[in-house]
């Protein structure tokens, strides 16, 4: 049985039939390499996954004393739940005790991709434009010393001002109104009391629910003085998104997105996170299609005018593997190295694509835009 094993070394992609004996011995997930030479060349980075539990700082806030963190980031206290005024139309999961979106559960497993009619497209345009406005407000607050909780407050209030419900709030019990993912956090970081530090990269992921439609977008921002390596990762990640958007048009297969993203990422020496993918979005926060960002995936479906979906590649410096913190949300790289992400909500048009969550007046993301 062929097993599709590909070398762990980020840019390699060669077929791999050898594995690291230390990972095997320590009961870590098996890691595969194409040759001893390749293994040696990435040893310095790979050995990070072997590290044993380090000394614990007993006087610091540590909600999970037994958990071995893959990187330097630590959780900080999370503030109490923010409320949304009753006057703003809520999602079905907003008031569900476990945050379950019943409407999504109903169509779970269905691969049917709904083409939106003109009215629905208009609803999406508005929601996405508002989502962009909210993200821009949050972006303006990203700076050294600001806590991610403060960014969450800005997002929360910006949503309310625009008559939007912040979609992440209570979605499967997610505690906050946006996701803030710093450094080795791949996605779904929970805003907390940690102040951003110079050198951090921070992704803010906003989704708003306005008059029945969701608009979903995110950008990675550079905090203070950022290393050249970090900047390169963020740049390549943004390029991956751009290249993927470039192929969107009626008739294109959804599975092709992953081929485009992984090709560019590996050419530049990076890996593609596999556990999380893009998704259909309209009246439901997450629905068909499923859009993996890795190559050779089995995503079903072909793009048609009226389809709305996100592309949101997560690109990592080191391994593609991810792990989850005990909060059941925060996804981190298995080796503690950096990961960046960018996301747009897209509409397939008769001739190509419309980027519904685009920035006003420029095609540049904020981190490249010197006028921001």
């Amino acid at each position, binding site marked *: *049985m*062929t*097993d*599709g*094993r*590909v070398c762990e070394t980020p840019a390699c992609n060669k077929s*791999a*039939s*050898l*594995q*690291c*004996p*230390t990972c095997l011995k320590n009961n870590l997930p*098996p890691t*595969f*390499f194409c*040759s*001893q030479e390749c*293994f*040696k060349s990435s*040893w310095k980075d790979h*050995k990070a996954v*072997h590290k*044993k539990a380090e000394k614990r700082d007993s006087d610091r806030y540590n909600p999970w004393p037994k958990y071995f963190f893959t990187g330097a980031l630590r959780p900080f206290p999370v503030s109490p739940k923010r409320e949304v005024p009753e006057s703003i139309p809520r999602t079905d999961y907003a008031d569900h005790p*476990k*945050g*379950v979106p019943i409407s*999504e*559960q109903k169509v*779970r*497993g269905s*691969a049917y991709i709904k083409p939106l009619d003109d009215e629905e497209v208009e609803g999406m345009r508005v929601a996405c434009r508002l989502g962009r406005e909210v993200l821009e407000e949050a972006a303006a607050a990203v700076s050294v010393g600001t806590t991610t909780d403060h960014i969450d407050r800005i997002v929360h209030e910006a949503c309310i001002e625009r008559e939007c419900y912040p979609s992440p709030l209570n*979605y*499967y*019990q*997610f505690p906050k109104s946006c996701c803030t993912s710093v450094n080795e956090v791949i996605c*779904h970081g929970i805003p907390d009391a940690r102040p951003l530090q110079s050198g951090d990269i921070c992704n803010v992921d906003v989704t708003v629910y306005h008059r029945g439609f969701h608009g979903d977008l995110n950008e990675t921002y550079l905090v203070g003085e950022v290393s050249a390596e970090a900047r390169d990762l963020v740049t390549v990640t943004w390029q991956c998104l751009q290249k993927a958007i470039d192929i969107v048009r009626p008739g294109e*297969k959804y599975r092709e997105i992953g081929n485009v993203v992984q090709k560019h990422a590996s050419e530049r020496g990076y890996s593609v996170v*596999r*556990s*999380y*993918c*893009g*998704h259909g979005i309209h009246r439901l*926060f*997450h629905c068909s299609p*499923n859009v*993996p960002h*890795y*190559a*050779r*995936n*089995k995503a*079903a*479906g*072909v793009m048609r005018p009226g389809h709305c979906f996100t592309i*949101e590649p997560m690109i990592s410096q080191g391994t593609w593997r991810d792990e*989850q913190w005990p909060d*059941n*949300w925060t996804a981190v790289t298995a080796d503690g190295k950096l990961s960046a992400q960018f996301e747009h909500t897209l509409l397939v048009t008769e001739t190509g694509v419309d980027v519904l969550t685009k920035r006003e007046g420029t095609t540049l993301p904020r981190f490249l835009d010197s006028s921001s």
Partner: protein
Amino acid sequence: MSDEEDFVPDLVPAQYAPIPVLIITGCLGAGKTTLLNYILTEQHHKRIAVILNEFGEGSAMEKSLSIGEEGNMYEEWLELRNGCLCCSVKDNGVKAIENLMQKRGRFDYILLETTGLADPGPVASIFWLDKELGSDVYLDGIVTVVDAKNIVKTLDEATEEAMSEEPAEQSTLGTPARQVALADLLILNKTDLVTPAELDEIRSRLVAINGAAALLPTSRCRVDLDKILDLHAYEKVDFKSLEKQFTVPGGSHIDQSLGTVTLERPGSVRRRDLESFVHGLLWEKTVADRRGRPVHMLRMKGMASVVGEERRLILQAVGEICDTEFASRWEPDEPHVTRLIFIGRHLDESRLDEAFRSTVPVVSEHQSDAV
């Protein structure tokens, strides 16, 4: 262990041994539980996990899991973390199984019993993961236990109900027929309760729906376990043992027109043409029957000869998910043939053949087979 870290160990040969997941389905009372118990007691030297009830549904925080080990069964809990189910590529349940195995050690098999009313299709899709995900589990196949005493009546009832109004959505299809259609192996149980003549009728009904599945008659589910475990139904395709089946033509729609069609063509084709044909069938609904009803494919298997390639191309599809992959080489004197088997609703052999011929031309021929 501190800094012996600069010493680079030698790589060892990769052992990729994911664990097979077998889905066991069938109507209430058909004998699923009997089968499970039989497997657990017969395979008492293996560590087998049995998961009962629905999978991929609901928001339960935990599912109970029974593990059979050395003849005993003990309970475990699958923690279904209430994290992000949304944009996660792996189903919560799959992750829960992987986490459990990390903590408690690997299993030799995982048997997943769905309830009598369940459609095994979505569950199969959940476990048919991309290899790139490097999962610890893989989908071995679907086994449907059929109650010989009642199956004909059950199928007739479902057909009557379906005939009264034309169902638009696949969700209203009769589950018993779907369970048969999606099976890789049919265990025809309780054969001791029917006459040989009835047994023949049952066989024909089943084979008419699903011509690709192996059929094992049994009583009390005492089957040869070599025939159930390690099916690899989503990896290999064994055409030698398949019989050619035809859909029931025209008007008499037995079993809601669920049936099997096979197509065969000597010669080699281009991989992308074949994939376009399959994607069109599955996603675009490009082919319809004589009454204009689009083909609704439940399961597909195929083997193709690809131009310029010495290995066979294997095609697998369930529901809307499909995949092609190169497998073993053609034997030196083996004729290169492309064979497809379709299981679904509204299958019209001539229409399918026409679409196949026009979308997937033979590019070059091998041997002396003329078109």
